């Protein structure tokens, strides 16, 4: 058992887990033919078959059943407010399966020029009463049942009375915001807490206006929408759900990382000495002190950031995203690529942090302006 636990503890470290997740992701949701080829070659598409579903669900269940035997694991998983996230893991996979299963079925049909499963003779309709109403009604009852079982079985948490003088360690945001809190590790509050959330909201609202692809409206399908879907999946599964899971289960006192089987030791220490780009350049490379003039000091940072947002778009427009560029035109494409780059900036920043201990690209604490 121990080796297994240790293995999991290592595997779940943010660096490793996120890397794995991000780099295997395109193989599960192939965004181009090359990945698609490998996806088939690795038989990853089996994931969306009944067998795949059963295997994964059983696997997950086993993992939790076994894990719960461990005291530390139990402590963190069965914490009242964390239970929904355990549920979330199952639900997300299950519905991912539901959709991808139908999508892949439809893909087959479409490839043979047939209509998708959802298609029925437009004249042949179904009465809402009783079928739809009835089904809805029943599912509501069942939903209520679930809620009752949940409420009886699990008491709502109540901790010490609010005390401004004593900060609990760790003190976490509500679980559905833990993605943001996790982002706070890598970005300044004004970005992680304000700008990015805003961008996320507007980005989501912009989707219909950016996705000009007429395909797959009203039925599940993947092949013809693979870019859209994989971007959405990446953002939702990796950069939101996964970060929530990390923030909930794997972040302990002092926001240190703790494996699911690890004891939350308050005195655990982690090397957190991070430096800014300016320091790297001026002190490490040039071996000179930091220039007093802020702009001079941060010039490289600005170059990098602006470069990132100015150089990549045209580059991509010429290459990978050519089709989209033509579809959306300048403005649409601009917005799209900006959102895309913002989304990618999180993993990029993560890696900069992990590899170079980079704190900020631009660090102007004088004006709370850090990127």
């Amino acid at each position, binding site marked *: 058992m121990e080796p297994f636990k240790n293995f999991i503890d290592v595997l779940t470290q943010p660096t490793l887990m996120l890397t794995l997740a991000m780099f295997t992701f395109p193989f599960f949701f192939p965004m181009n033919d090359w990945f698609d080829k490998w996806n088939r070659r690795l038989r990853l598409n089996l994931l969306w078959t009944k067998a795949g579903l059963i295997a994964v669900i059983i696997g997950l269940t086993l993992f939790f059943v076994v894990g719960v035997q461990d005291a530390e694991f139990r402590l963190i998983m069965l914490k009242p407010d964390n239970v*929904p996230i355990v*549920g979330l893991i199952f*639900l997300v996979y299950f519905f*991912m399966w*539901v*959709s991808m299963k139908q999508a892949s079925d439809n893909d087959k049909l479409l490839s043979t020029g047939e209509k*998708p499963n*959802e*298609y*029925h003779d*437009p004249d042949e309709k179904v*009465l*809402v*009463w009783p079928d*739809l109403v009835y*089904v*809805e009604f029943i*599912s*509501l009852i069942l*939903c209520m049942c*679930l*809620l*009752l079982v*949940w*409420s*009886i079985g699990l*008491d*709502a948490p*109540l*901790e*010490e*009375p*609010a*005390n*401004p003088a*004593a900060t*609990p360690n760790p003190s*976490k*945001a*509500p679980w*559905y915001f833990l993605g943001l809190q996790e982002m706070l590790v890598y970005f300044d*509050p*004004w970005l992680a*807490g*304000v700008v990015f959330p805003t961008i996320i*909201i507007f980005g989501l*609202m912009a*989707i*219909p206006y950016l*996705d000009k692809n007429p*395909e*797959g*409206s*009203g*039925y*599940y399908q993947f092949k013809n*929408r693979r870019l859209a*879907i994989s971007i959405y999946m990446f953002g939702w599964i990796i950069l939101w759900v996964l970060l929530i899971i990390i923030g909930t289960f794997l972040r302990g006192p002092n926001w240190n990382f703790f494996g699911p089987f690890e004891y939350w030791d308050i005195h655990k220490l982690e090397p957190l000495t991070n430096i800014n780009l300016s320091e790297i350049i001026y002190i490490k490379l040039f071996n000179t002190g930091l220039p007093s003039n802020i702009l001079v000091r941060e010039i490289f940072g600005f170059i990098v950031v602006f470069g990132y947002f100015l150089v990549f778009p045209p580059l991509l427009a010429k290459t990978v995203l050519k089709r989209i560029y033509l579809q959306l035109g300048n403005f649409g494409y601009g917005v799209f690529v900006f959102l895309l780059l913002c989304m990618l900036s999180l993993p990029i920043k993560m890696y900069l942090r992990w590899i170079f201990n980079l704190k900020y690209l631009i660090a102007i604490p004088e004006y*709370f*302006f850090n990127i």
Partner: protein
Amino acid sequence: MSDKKNIFERFGESQVWKSIFRSGVPRTRRQRMMSVLNSVFLHLHPVRLPRHAVKLKFTWCMGGLTFFLFLVLTISGILLMFYYRPTAEYAYTDMIDLGEQVPLGIMREIHRWGAHAMVITTWLHMFRVFMTGSYKPPREFNWSIGVLLLVLTLLLSFTGYLLPWDQLAMWAITVGGNMARATPFVGHEGPGAALLSIGDINFINMGADAKFALLGGRFVGEAALLRFYVLHCIGLPFVVMILMAVHFWRVRKDGGISGPT
């Protein structure tokens, strides 16, 4: 077929029933249509649907569940308001008493877990809509409304999180509130805040910035408690209901549930 009628049929033809449900027991096609048309609740739906639309595997009924959970939360919330006072003195002890002695104190569990569930169902609903590409024309706008509803759901949950007035609540909100502190220009620790000062006088300071507006004080205190309580019980639900109305209305107006053509 004898005209021996079972109890349902008898009742279904009684004046009372007919007065309430104009079209007796819905057994004929016509009756069935009418029962949908005549019911203020049901006529949310069209009378007839394409076959795929009634299949659970297509809709997952997630939108319906989200709406239902909203109702559950409203009811349990109202009941909780009878035993909860949003003041520094009582908030916490009332919470204890909900667990210890209040009749049907389990309402608190239903409310809390219901809220968690609603967040999840909202996400899944969004996921479903995306996967079926149902945001595509002519439904773009409704998707945006949906996104707003999602945000409001999170805000509702967030404001409710403070009300138990325990450490969990206070510090979760503090962490959240500190983000507002860093809002560009209007947060006193946000970039650009310094620009909004004339001479040595900062107009954006601890006592006057986004965070302050959120908490009604420099720190999470009684003012914040009251503020969140009002938002949680009246402000946000009000907005949510309006948007929901629009959302549902648009579903119908945009040609009902999406489907292949």
